[in-house]
């Protein structure tokens, strides 16, 4: 039994920290925070140049063949530094899916620029009327010669304003059961007929609503077989849930501890000496350790060649729910000044706790709601019967 990530990981951590010191200036973090766009091209290209976008990929794709533990260490460091990783995360989901089910042509066209950090992908699953019930997508793709013509609307197309392609779930056969008439496409976001509107969130993130009016996509941009989109989605969703490492919860915990150790309270004593502060920080530390272990297990199962479906759901459920609860506790612990936003000089921990409070709850929704995760755990993990609904 060994809970350490190992020496190679520790070396990698050091490299990543050095890289971040050079390529992630405070201005980038601030700009990401202000715009709500968790992607920065300069940083991303540097990451690509270093070979770390494809760090886990086989050498044949230009990757570094790093194991899941190294990937965990890499991602941990990026998260702890507050690096923008939405573009990275989304693109890897799509790239890995292309690698598994794409054509040779698709692999050659998309994978090199994706791993080099030249392009990123957006995810086009959710629609106004289909969220958890993603298979109910109404966006239509109809065949027209060598092309497909796409009409419909997607919600929460995060980074569509920066991405080259959206990985789009479309209905190609409305006559069959809803899971059986879906097909996946890579739709160039500069195609005629694509429109997008920014959607701003409580957490300060920017996402988009995207609209598709007679958008023509060549058949070679279809991923997987016609009407085989659900299987492709299943692969992609597993990638989405698995492989988290340390999360924002760890970053903010560390920021909170550093702040509490270096700041005096109203009574002139260090804030870290306050039992109510100590209790909350100790309690969150436990939750974060559990989240870390559940994440490590997900990586471990993947490293052993397994598909960590239940394990990934457990991690996602735990980290999002405990982070949401802990964000509320940490904010309480700050008292009246806790509400101050980043930018106000008095904001405790530079406002990161207040920001986490606005941000955390959304993590219980995206990538599969907590209800969806619990359903996976109950049915596939515990073997409980599927509910009527």
């Amino acid at each position, binding site marked *: 039994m060994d809970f350490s990530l190992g020496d190679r990981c520790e070396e990698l951590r050091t490299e990543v920290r050095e890289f971040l010191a050079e390529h992630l200036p405070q201005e980038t973090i601030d700009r990401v925070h202000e715009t709500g766009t968790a992607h920065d091209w300069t940083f991303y290209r540097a990451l690509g140049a270093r070979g770390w976008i494809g760090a886990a990929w086989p050498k044949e794709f230009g990757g570094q063949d790093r194991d899941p533990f190294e990937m965990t260490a890499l991602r941990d460091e990026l998260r702890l530094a507050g690096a923008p990783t939405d573009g990275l995360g989304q693109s890897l989901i799509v790239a890995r899916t292309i690698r598994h089910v794409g054509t040779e042509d698709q692999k050659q066209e998309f994978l090199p620029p994706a791993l080099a950090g030249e392009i990123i992908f957006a995810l086009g699953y959710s629609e106004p009327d289909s*969220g958890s019930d993603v298979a109910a997508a109404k966006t239509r793709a109809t065949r027209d010669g060598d092309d497909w013509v796409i009409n419909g609307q997607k919600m929460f197309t995060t980074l569509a304003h920066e991405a080259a392609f959206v990985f789009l779930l479309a209905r190609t056969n409305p006559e069959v059961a809803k899971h059986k008439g879906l097909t996946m496409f890579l739709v160039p976001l500069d195609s005629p007929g694509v429109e997008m509107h920014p959607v701003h969130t409580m957490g300060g993130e920017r996402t988009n609503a995207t609209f598709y009016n007679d958008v023509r996509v060549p058949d070679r941009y279809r991923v997987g077989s016609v009407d085989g989109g659900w299987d492709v989605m299943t692969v992609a969703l597993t990638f989405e849930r698995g492989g988290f490492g340390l999360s924002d919860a760890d970053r903010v915990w560390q920021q909170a501890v550093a702040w509490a150790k270096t700041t005096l309270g109203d009574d002139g004593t260090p804030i870290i000496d306050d039992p109510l502060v100590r209790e909350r920080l100790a309690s969150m530390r436990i939750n974060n350790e559990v989240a870390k272990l559940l994440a490590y297990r997900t990586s471990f199962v993947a490293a052993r060649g397994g598909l960590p479906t239940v394990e990934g759901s457990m991690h996602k459920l735990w980290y999002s729910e405990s982070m949401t609860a802990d964000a509320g506790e940490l904010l309480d612990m700050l008292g009246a000044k806790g509400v101050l936003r980043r930018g106000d000089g008095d904001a405790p921990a530079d406002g990161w706790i207040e920001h986490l409070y606005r941000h955390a709850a959304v993590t219980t929704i995206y990538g599969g709601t907590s*209800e969806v995760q619990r359903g996976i755990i109950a049915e596939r993990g515990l073997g409980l019967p599927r509910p009527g609904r």
Partner: protein
Amino acid sequence: MDLDLNPQQQDLVAAFRAFFLKESPPSVVRSAEPHGFDPSLWSRVAQLGGPAIGVPEGSGGGGAGLVDLVLITEQLGASLAPIPLLEGMIAARVLARVGDSGREALERLTSSAPAVATVALTPVRDGQARMVPAGGIAELVVGLDGSDLVLASGEPPVGRRNLGDSPVADRSFGADRTVLASGSAALELHATALNEWRTLTAGAQAGLGATALGLGVEYAKQRKQFGVPIGSFQSIARDLADVATAVDGATMLAREAAWAADVCQTDAPALAGMAFLFAGRTAQKASGVALHVHGGYGFTLEYDVQLYYRRAKAWSLALGDPRRGLQALADVLFGPGART
């Protein structure tokens, strides 16, 4: 026992509900962000009584008791109306209680174009009151400085950006301050003001919680996934049922605290503390559940539920860490603790 509203109270609730529904829909709340104040709405609320509604009629006010005021703040919280009515009510009642020293200021609150007034919740230190609710818009601020209850007036500073988009700010108590009362009278007046603030805020949070619950229930009935309304999923319905129970409890507890103060029950201070803490927790839970029920949409600024989610938390923090609030409640219930 009588848990019903009397006819005058029913009229009062109906008037404020209608006013806020018409004059302060979510679009008004949103456009008052981030500073949390709509001056035009403020000038219009005067027609319903304004901040002096809870001041004795003999002092030029509306003569309403705390139960009446809590019914009003329920509606205020339900609508998130961006006006400092709650703060003004508290300030006006303090000013009416101090007598002569507050008369001039009180007249500015009983006027048809009432000034914005507030009370600093924590004592003034080194001439500063921190994080004063409505401190970013109030011309008049009552505060406790040592054993003096004092009034500062003057141009408000710019409010500080915060989670609840409320006009909170620090206020100086400089040379131009007026002493309203001193000694134990001052301490008692401030303590009473704080308990009234707790009670009225409890009403506001209960109202906020009720609206948030309503948003959640409505969405759960409309929104379909897997071919059925999501409200028919047990895990959604269960959370909403828990919230409904807590919201009803919070509403009654706020009213009970107000009633106990109106009839001078000895447990009124304890009830004020309980009502504030429970309503704050309930509003957070209600808006949190409603937010989650809305799925991804709940987080977008276009939807209303996030307005409630943010304010529920921000309002509950105005007096500091709620866990310290439990200690303060314990002090009332059991006498001050030696080890705190």
